[in-house]
């Protein structure tokens, strides 16, 4: 497994996302309120635009989520599953903190 550094963990604000370019893959990385990190594909499958990292982070029945900024479909940060449309899922990527640095693996 190859890990790519993204940014300092301290640069990640609670309940906001950032986007990293890993090779030619766009990864949306989120930090939730409890400090946990999650990484999803940045591409919004409904619009085809690369925007998920700019969505609002929250919870649905306790599950951490992000809402697409274009048409507000909500995705689980844990599974990548769209909670508004069962059949739709976005890829989830491994993410970790190593030496204060956020890293993802694609």
């Amino acid at each position: 497994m190859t890990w790519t550094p993204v940014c300092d963990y301290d640069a990640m604000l609670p309940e906001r996302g950032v986007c990293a370019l890993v090779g030619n893959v766009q990864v949306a990385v989120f930090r939730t309120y409890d400090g946990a990190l999650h990484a999803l594909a940045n591409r919004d499958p409904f619009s085809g635009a690369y925007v998920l990292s700019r969505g609002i982070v929250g919870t649905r029945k306790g599950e951490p989520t992000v809402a697409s900024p274009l048409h507000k479909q909500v995705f689980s940060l844990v599974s990548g599953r769209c909670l508004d449309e069962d059949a739709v899922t976005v890829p989830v990527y491994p993410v970790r903190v190593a030496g204060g640095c956020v890293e993802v693996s694609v």
Partner: protein
Amino acid sequence: MNRIVVVGYGPAAHRFVETLADKGFDGRITVIGEEPRPAYDRVALTSYLSGTTAEDLTYPVPGGVVTRLNTRVTGIDRQAGHVVTEDGGAEPYDVLVLATGSAPFVPPVPGAEHAFVYRTIEDLDAIRVAAKDAAEGVVIGGGLLGLEAADALRALGLKAHIVEMSPWLMPRQVDEGGGSVLKSHIEELGLSVHAGAGVQDIVTDGEGRVTGLRKPDGTLVDAQVVVFSAGIRPRDELARSAGLAVGERGGIVVDSAMRTSDPSIYAVGECALAGGMVYGLVGPCTTMAEVAAEQIMGGQAVFEGADLSTKLKLLGVEVAQFGAMDGALDVTYMDPVAGVYKKLFISDDAQTLLGGICVGDASPYTTLRPFVGKPLPAAPSDLLFTGSGAASLDLPDDAQVCSCNNVCAGDIRTAIAGSGAADVAGIKACTRAGTTCGSCVPMLKQLLEKSGVEVSKSLCEHFTYSRAELFDIVRVRKISTFSQLITEHGQGRGCDICKPAVASILASLHNGHVLEGERAALQDTNDAFLANIQKNGTYSVVPRIPGGEITPDKLIVIGEVARDFGLYTKITGGQRIDLFGARVEQLPEIWRRLVDAGFESGHAYGKALRTVKSCVGSTWCRYGVQDSVGMAIALELRYRGLRSPHKLKSAVSGCARECAEARSKDFGIIATEQGWNLYVGGNGGFKPRHADLLAKDLGTDELIRTIDRFLMFYIRTADRLQRTAAWIESLDGGLDYLREVIMEDSLGLCADLDAQMEHHIATYADEWQATLDDPDKLSRFVSFVNAPGVPDPSIVFGSERGQIRPAVAR
């Protein structure tokens, strides 16, 4: 039976063809009317003088209906089965419906030919012209319509007199005690009331100009405009000449199916004599129209007379009457200081409510009218004092709640329990209750509450409060962060619904920067990047151009920025320029150039004040009466940056021609010779709505104070994403209530609202300037956090008409 011809095109004819269309009639419907336009709302006729246009008042013609306007019908050939029009043409029918209405009664006094009547838009046009050179006007007839006409004369700037034969005003609705309270209300407004007086003649000078009216005792009332409003006479002349049965005192005789003495001819509305009565109120007339339509379609509906109860507001005074106007016993409540008079009539055993009269406070009308003919729900003295006593009454199932559409409490309970109507809109859709005059809407709400329907007002799964409740919690508890609010008053960590709503509340109350600290994580992407996201993930930029006024130098800067960054440019509907296709990392560079040239954020991305559009106004326009551009700029600068439950749009027009389209805005201002008219609650969008006139002829200070309070009251109490149009419609008491709160300070809120607006204005700062000055905020404006200089490769453009357009790179 496939050809229906309707003669006359007033509200009854309109309801008739509308009902036929609703019921799926598939034959040919022809409506022949002598007026130049289809049916219009005569109840709201007076508003035509204060800015409502004829088009606003006109009802839409149902699809498939053929109309022949400006056409008089001169005869009915019952043998041949056709009507004859004045041009000699014939219109064949299988079923004929006469909806010829009535004509104002003008008594045969000398000089009456110089007087006006008050019925059609053309009548009002004529009165308006005559009022131009007049100082005083007199209305003969102090009934409902007469008082409307007097209000119209007053609105046209005349000193108005009312002459009424009876000893008091509105004798058909109120008794002597009510009449005297009504008189003092009206005299307080500067009108003169001459009750118990007749008309000898209309006096003219040597050149035939009206100078006044002479009463039988010889005294003169000075007036240059005379309007008769002395009752109506059914227009039955066509029926009469065709040999149909007519009443001794006029009116086309109909049975309970609305059929005349010829079974293929029906009559509806004011021309019909039903059960020996001619009805002049819109409620019974539209019921007749519905009955006729049902009958023609094979239904069984009948017209069995109508409740003549009335509730209205004339010259700002509430007047209501229901049930009988006398009884064995009566109980009166009178407060001459407040100008309130309420009386109930009850049976001799003091058990049954027979009727009531209200002047100055019509609240008993709504609660007690359904109890007419039924046991008194409480002691009469309790019922006459306003308030909770009367409001908590349990209505019997057969009590009529909506008299306009004849809907009983039982029907509404069925709609709630059986058809699942869960709110007022649902009840309206199921039963039509509350869809005509709306006076029963408070009753509908009570019935909903009593039925135990819990209308959820929770914002989302994280808060069980409505937006307005959250606003109060944040304000009263002085909460400054989302985390504190959700920890203390909610659950979970929020979502795309509650976070922006709370961000907006915090911004409205504190006016700090939207990207400061934790607040940055609450914002929708538009607010987070201070720009408008587009379908391909790029953003558009709208600099503020207050009032739509811009110097050539600034125009050139916008052009240069667009050219240098390769942006698509388009003029917006709000008189600004939108620059499309910017990537997030370009936004700070673009704004650096714009801010340096003196531009500020236009807040096109926010639920906030957008733009105050203007026409060019009196500075240049030969028609303008006020400086609309100056006013628009002043308002836009005053309210810029104000966050609200939804976007706010405004416009200022410099004269009544309304080139700025102010009446489609949340708050629109139209210049008058005397000042400014303020309209509120307009909307374009998918549910267009013309704004309502909130106040007339305001001075500049008064105008601004009223808008300040309107906006702040809206911000406090509206639901999330509820535009002002829907908000006003949701207010109990509607526009009148709004006027009481923000113009008469009925809730004692105004000082608070004023202070809140002062705070907003004092703390406004340009969001883009502040962002450019703060490296922390700027650091967010990158496509890739690990490659800040790299543009997003997914964003590609094609070209169209010489500019970029989004292309697909997938």
